């Protein structure tokens, strides 16, 4: 029988670990370099499909609305009329709502409307109440507040809206009263129906029109309300 000349050597087991590891590093290195050079742009683009954490698909919402004691409306209104000074709430005391948060409620007693008020007017928000368009402002800012709702659910009562009716918005930082002063029916593509750049506080509510009709209607009902009372938000504090 032929005796191998390296019979004095060990079985060389460590080579079976070290060499495959070295080869593996080379294989992965070469492959990575080749893939990146061939499709680096595609890989960079693919990174857009990943976020920092697992996505939350819950359709629930956070409620930051804590009702505060309601002052006598008439008294409050008198105060507003007798003095040009408006009660001021420092911004530091206000918990600003995040997208989708319920931060208040909107009530029009004459129209039998009592709905949760959300920050954002997406599908989830309008399924649960009415929502402030995030390109407008929240009450107290001294600007336009644009609120949307479905005509067959929470804003169905807007069909009873009339001039002079009071609209109440209750938030955790103050209770607001507005008075309906105009109602307009416009086409869905009428961009002049609301002025989001107004430098005075006003409330605009809108929904699809006609009410109670089947299908997606091509018109919108806009209900305008002027500010009556409620604290101003002071963003200097």
């Amino acid at each position, binding site marked *: *029988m*032929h*005796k*191998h000349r*390296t*019979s004095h*050597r060990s*079985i*060389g087991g460590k*080579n*079976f*670990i070290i*060499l*495959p*590891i070295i*080869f*593996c590093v*080379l*294989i*992965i290195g*070469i*492959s990575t370099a080749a893939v990146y050079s061939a499709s680096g742009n595609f890989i960079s683009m693919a990174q*857009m*499909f*990943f*976020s*920092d*954490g*697992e*996505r939350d*698909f819950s359709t629930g919402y956070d409620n930051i609305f804590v009702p505060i004691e309601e002052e006598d409306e008439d008294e409050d209104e008198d105060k507003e009329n007798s003095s040009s000074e408006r009660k001021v709430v420092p911004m530091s005391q206000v918990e600003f709502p995040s997208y989708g948060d319920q931060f208040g409620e909107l009530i029009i007693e004459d129209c039998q409307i009592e709905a949760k008020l959300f920050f954002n007017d997406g*599908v989830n928000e*309008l*399924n649960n109440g009415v929502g402030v368009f995030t390109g407008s402002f929240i009450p107290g800012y001294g600007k336009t507040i644009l609120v949307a709702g*479905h*005509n*067959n*659910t929470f804003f169905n009562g807007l069909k009873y809206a009339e001039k002079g009716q009071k609209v109440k918005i209750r938030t955790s930082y103050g209770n607001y009263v507005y008075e309906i002063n105009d109602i307009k029916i416009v086409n869905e593509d009428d961009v002049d129906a609301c002025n989001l750049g107004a430098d005075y506080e006003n409330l605009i509510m809108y929904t*699809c029109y006609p009410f*109670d*009709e*089947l*299908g*997606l*209607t*091509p018109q919108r009902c806009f209900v305008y309300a002027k500010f009556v009372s409620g604290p101003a938000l002071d963003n200097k504090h």
Partner: protein
Amino acid sequence: MSDSGKRFNFKSVVYGFLSFILGFLLFLLSVCLVLKFTFFSKDFMLESMANSGYYEMTKDELCDELQDLGHASGLPDEFFDDFVRGLDMVEIERTYISAFYTGSSELVDTDKFKQSLIDAVNVYIDENNIDNKKADENSILHFVNEASSIYVKTVKIPFFEVLAKYIKNVDTPLTVAVIGIAAAVLAVAAIIFFTNRYKHRRYRYLTYGLGAGFLSVAVVPIVVYSSGIIPKINLATRSLYNLFVGYFNSLFMYFWIFAGILLFLSVIGFVVYRQKYLKAIGR
């Protein structure tokens, strides 16, 4: 160094290099086979859909989205419960996926959906004695078109149409590549096996290559899972999220399977090498 020593070192380098090439080819072969069995396989996609509960979830999501539309259209939630229950999402999705893998342009048929919805609305109008004034034809048509868009969005899988042309174009070359790489693997293994004078050395160099192939293939899922990237995939709906998390988990399972096969062959190679070596040195 003596001539025999130099020759021995030179041969070691050459066979070491061939082992490296063998490992590289095994890695490429494994990657190509994984892609062939997963990304380029219609059955794999359909299996992933069935396993992730995709059909049931898309049905629920379609119903929810249509109900949302119903809130703006005066139709109650129950109307959509009944309507969506009548849709065969399994057949609709299977048709869509099949069209995608064959590169057809007609991916989602909306005509049947629209007609079914119009019929259902008409039945609802009749059953509820709704006044014609409250059922304007244009408003209903607008609603049906919007519902159809939601239906298409729900059935479609994002970016699949973009990828479809690549799948159609790359599938055949990939099959050729698999055959070519497999032939190259056999050729390199044959060179190592038949050109070595000593039997134990044949198995040694084959084992080096198999070990390198095993480690390289195993590195891919190890890197992916240690980065925790799969659960962070950002998709619009829960059904798509579950589908693709399951899809990628199954895809990387194939890497584990190939790594396992290569590990098994490496161990066999080492055991045979050891037996041959011990026999060679006469122990």
